[in-house]
């Protein structure tokens, strides 16, 4: 197992490098560029643009720019944003806690919703509850996030005035958990709703598979209560596909949720990325892409390891 882990980690290095090359080249191949907005403005001359290009280090060939970026990155210098003139690392670091808070709460809520829904649905297949849960999942999955978010604002902020429409906390008031929770409710609901509906579907169908298997029937015939059968026999095996889904979703805890963050004015990573993309801010984009790619690789590995733990039939050499 240790050998396997080491091998996978070593394989990840060239993979990650390859990703950074591709991203770096693609970003620069995109038409436009960080200075395109200045061209065509009578107030800013071609001379100004040329000067800025040189000051930003964009006047050298792309391979040279890449090597410079990589060299600095390996030394822990993630570069400076072209527009805010701040260190990229600092910009990511100040957004990350906000995103982690929002995404992890939403994630937890979605699982708390999805697991009981799926279990009841699967054990009472074709019951009224199952049909209702299926409908809920279908609707929740079909509605776009921006629509759900705006509807929640319309109803709970503008209509009922129960909850704030946007932001992270009440400005000018000291920190309190209650205040923070009030601001979390709507964005978390928006995110958890669509995530829960997907998780429910995965778990329900894999539970149904498992419940039909012989060893589950055996457990029942031994006279075990349904609750115990599901808990100690069926659920563990049924959860394996869900683990894959969840492991692949975990990098989202880092990269955030653009639309929800935008609607609820949540200062997270999704918006940082979107703003950087709009301004073609190469260093910020590279920083976010690299971390996100690294996390995807890492959590794939984590998923594989968790498999082996959950299912002894899977072994890695």
């Amino acid at each position, binding site marked *: 197992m240790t050998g396997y882990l080491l091998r996978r980690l070593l394989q990840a290095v060239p993979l990650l490098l390859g990703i950074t090359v591709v991203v770096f080249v693609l970003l620069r191949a995109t038409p436009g560029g960080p200075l395109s907005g200045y061209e*065509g403005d009578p107030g800013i001359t071609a001379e100004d643009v040329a000067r800025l290009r040189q000051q930003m280090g964009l006047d050298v060939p792309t391979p040279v720019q890449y090597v410079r970026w990589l060299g600095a990155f390996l030394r822990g210098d993630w570069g400076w944003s072209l527009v805010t003139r701040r260190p990229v690392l600092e910009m990511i670091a100040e957004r990350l806690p906000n995103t982690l808070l929002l995404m992890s709460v939403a994630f937890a809520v979605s699982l708390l919703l999805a697991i009981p829904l799926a279990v009841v649905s699967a054990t009472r297949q074709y019951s009224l509850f199952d049909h209702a849960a299926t409908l809920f999942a279908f609707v929740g999955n079909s509605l776009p996030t921006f629509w759900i978010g705006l509807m929640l604002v319309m109803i709970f902020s503008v209509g009922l005035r129960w909850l704030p429409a946007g932001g992270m906390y009440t400005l000018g008031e000291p920190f309190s958990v209650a205040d923070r929770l009030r601001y979390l409710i709507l964005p978390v609901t928006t995110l958890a709703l669509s995530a829960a509906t997907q998780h429910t579907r995965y778990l329900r169908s894999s539970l149904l598979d498992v419940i039909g298997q012989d060893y589950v029937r055996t457990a029942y015939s031994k006279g075990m209560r349904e609750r115990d059968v599901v808990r100690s026999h069926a659920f563990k095996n049924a959860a394996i596909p869900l683990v894959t889904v969840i492991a692949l979703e975990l990098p989202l805890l880092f990269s955030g949720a653009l639309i929800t*963050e935008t609607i609820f004015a949540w200062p997270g990573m999704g918006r940082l990325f*979107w703003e950087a993309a709009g301004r073609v801010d190469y260093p910020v984009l590279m920083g976010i892409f690299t971390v996100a790619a690294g996390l995807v690789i890492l959590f794939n590995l984590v998923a594989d390891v968790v498999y082996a733990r959950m299912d002894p039939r899977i072994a890695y050499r």
Partner: protein
Amino acid sequence: MVARRRAVLRRARALAGAALLAACGPQGPQGPAGTESGGAGQPAPAGARPAQGAQPAGQPRPGGTLRIAVYQEPTVLNPYMNSQTVGSEVFDQLFQGLILVDPDGNYVPWLATEVPGVQNGGVSADGKTVTFKLRPGVTWHDGKPFTARDVVFTWQAVMDPSNPVTTRTGWKDIEAVEARDDTTAVVRFKEFYAPYLTLFGRILPAHGFGGQTAMDKHEFGRRPIGTGPFKFVEWVSGDHISLAKHADYWKQGQPYLDQLIFRVTPSREVSVAQLKTAEVDVVWDMIEAQVPEFEGHPDVDVWAFPGLGVERLVLNLSAPSGPAMGNPDTRHPILGDPRVREAIELAVNKKVLVDKLLYGKTTVAFSPLPTGWAAPRLPVSEFSPDRARKLLDEAGWKAGADGIRAKDGVKMQMAFATTSGNQLRELTQQVMQEQLRAVGIALEIKNVPSAVLLGTWADNSPRARGQFDVNMWTTNAGIDPHSHLFAYYHSSQIPSEANKGEGQNYARLKSDVVDRALEEGGASPDQARRKAAYERAIKGIVESRAHIFLYNRLDVDGARKYVKGHTNNPWSELTWDAESWWLAK
């Protein structure tokens, strides 16, 4: 990536340096508000400027916190390096310049005590030496006194080669800036620079950068110091920027508010929802379509007024295709004839556009420069389909069986392009399509994304290359119209292979009268002579119909009714007078 609207348009102080340029800002998922930039700020028709929200509610009441929703975030709080329009709203509170532009488009003293001119001896006869008398007793937010050395420093900082300032236009024409004494700054230009009053739009503190002029990557950009009515308190990225009253502000008793908070709310739908629930007090830069929503609202006022941007048709006078494409010496088969262009203007009912599509809240356009010190008063074009038909008949265009005119086998059918996805523009197009159809001209709507429509020569943009018939977009001329008018209408500014696509004379106007008048306007330090020159230039431009000016774009902001003391200023930002705002609640 072009264009954010308004503030770009509003470049009132023409802050040559502050360059609001919206330039490369991100667009919210809702898309851009949807117009064009292009130039520096321009004027608004006079007379539409009541003090907003001000039922004479008595004396201003000091105190309170005002929250203003903005859908953008400044990139850096250094006015010479920021690239987001919203930056100016924050800079207005933190920084001040030497000269301000009042709501009528006149220069008024700000940190200077008078506007230097040839008459008062502030400007030398050749226009190359400008002397600014500075206001005494002004202090920076950290308590240090403001002096002429800060003016010197501002120029040096803009010119420091290591600083990534957005533009040095005008600044690089300065030979030297001298602090003659604490309250006298003398600016000596190498060359005469006509818009000299628009420089020094924001003065930076000489002591703010540790005695250096290098500003790049400096912490000042996150914790600025200025002379403005509010001082910097806190900036939480992506969330808010909060400012507090500058206790030693040079205007006695002002500002009234204790705190001013810019709340970053990227979704415009949500900022409007927050205005309804009073989670914010003011919303910056709404779109026209949001106006009816607040008509008669008990708690919210919409501050809508004609802004600086002039929505116009840009007609291509040169060949729109073939080897001579964009060459001003080959005439457009249809638009090359001035009678046809005049007929188009006569056939367009601009009043209907304003009344039906802009809720009657703006004004019909008549000039690239509707107001301001240099703006001539010109009549609004006539709406007369009959005269349009007569002109077209005279020009030899005869109606065919389908009602569309033709001449020598050429059908009077043209492509009509604007930025796609902008509802107001699409409606405008449909209305105009019908109006022109009524006189026998067929327009075919062929919209493209704004990055294409408003692109540059290097991007192979159709407007730069001359590959279009009729385009529609907005731009504005700025408080000193020189650079705008010159770039858009002087014959040397027609983009071509020879000049590597420099210049914005996309219509390919070539007029000796306009050329000479524009050259004269840029050469004299005497404002009265310049005004006369621009009047001649603008008359020539309007009569050429290279551009047909449709309507003045609306500036729209929203505020709770308890926000008092604001006066609309199309030349400046929404919060230009926040020092006078107060809360009646």
